[in-house]
């Protein structure tokens, strides 16, 4: 038994001195901690300064996508008041013409949906309808020849007759004198 006690004491004392670190362990640990902390703070600063970088990439991309979407969707046709832009021409009213006061109704949504189903075209392909005109086709302004013809028709009879006679007189046969071309003179040999 005394031998066992001696052995236990020896084991305990050996265990007490087991795994003794090299001197200066505390200093090394504190130094490495300081270095790591400095690195961490540097990383944090770098991350905070570069925080705008993802936004700088994401925002232009989002804007480009939005712009592309708007362009492909199709811009609505400019609404022009053709009745105001085109000069009004007096025209005899026809019995089939609708009264000016009646308002033109836009095609209903039901018609639109039927058209979409029938064609099967995507939403983007559908264009907005142009405003319906009261007069169709749109009257164009008279050209200069037409205006002259109207003026002739509205002129009094003696003036019209004199104009017709003057025109007939001008329409006589045209005589063109013959073209005379002088023969070319050949240069003397030896001269440039």
């Amino acid at each position, binding site marked *: 038994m005394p031998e066992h006690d001696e052995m236990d004491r020896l084991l305990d004392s050996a265990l*007490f001195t087991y*795994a003794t*670190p090299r001197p200066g362990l505390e200093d090394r*640990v504190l130094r*490495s*901690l300081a270095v790591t902390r400095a690195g961490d703070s540097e990383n944090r600063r770098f991350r905070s300064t570069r925080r705008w970088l993802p936004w700088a990439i994401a925002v232009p991309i989002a804007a480009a996508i939005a712009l592309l979407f708007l362009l492909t969707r199709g811009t609505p046709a400019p609404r022009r008041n053709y009745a105001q832009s085109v000069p009004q021409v007096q025209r005899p009213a026809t019995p089939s013409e609708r009264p000016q006061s009646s308002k033109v109704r836009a095609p209903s949504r039901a018609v639109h949906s039927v058209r979409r189903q029938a064609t099967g075209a995507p939403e983007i392909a559908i264009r907005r309808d142009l405003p319906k005109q009261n007069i169709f086709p749109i009257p164009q302004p008279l050209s200069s020849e037409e205006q002259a013809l109207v003026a002739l028709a509205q002129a009094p009879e003696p003036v019209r007759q004199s104009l017709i006679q003057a025109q007939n007189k001008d329409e006589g046969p045209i005589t063109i004198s013959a073209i005379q071309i002088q023969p070319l003179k050949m240069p003397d040999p030896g001269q440039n």
Partner: protein
Amino acid sequence: MTRDEEAEFTALVERQSRFVFRVTYAVLLNCADAEDAVQESFLKLHRHGGWQQVDNERAFLARVAWRTAVDHLRSKRTASRLQNPQEVLSEMPSLHPGPEQTMMAADQHALIHSLIDTLPDDLRIPLVLSSTQELNSREIAAILEIPEGTVRTRLQRARLLLRQKLEVRQFRNQETRHA
């Protein structure tokens, strides 16, 4: 972290780094790796905090150190196997000289240290943790996540094994002297 907290943490490092080293060395059996694990353990504590609110400082530190050392050992073994499988056996040089060299020097403490290094992990780690006077069987059981009875059994087996090995060495030493 405030200045007071920094000062407290520095005091903790100065107070407990040797103890943490013992725990990590018991797992890793390598001086340099054990030091790395010590630094890693304190760095974890510094980053995550929680070291000021613990009841048993040593048990808490031992748990952190043990986990860090085990992770370190796993990563090192994986890396060694990937690099060169033949070097796995020869890795991890011990802090202590070999049993034969120690016997020649007749340094009994160094001999026991080298014999502790040869113990299996499940016996060596509880033995080293128990040698620090402030950790009892219950605390060691909590650190290693094993039942308290298992800790006691392992401690007895470790001591018995060490004693047997030491007796064999002493007997051989006497025979060598007589011859």
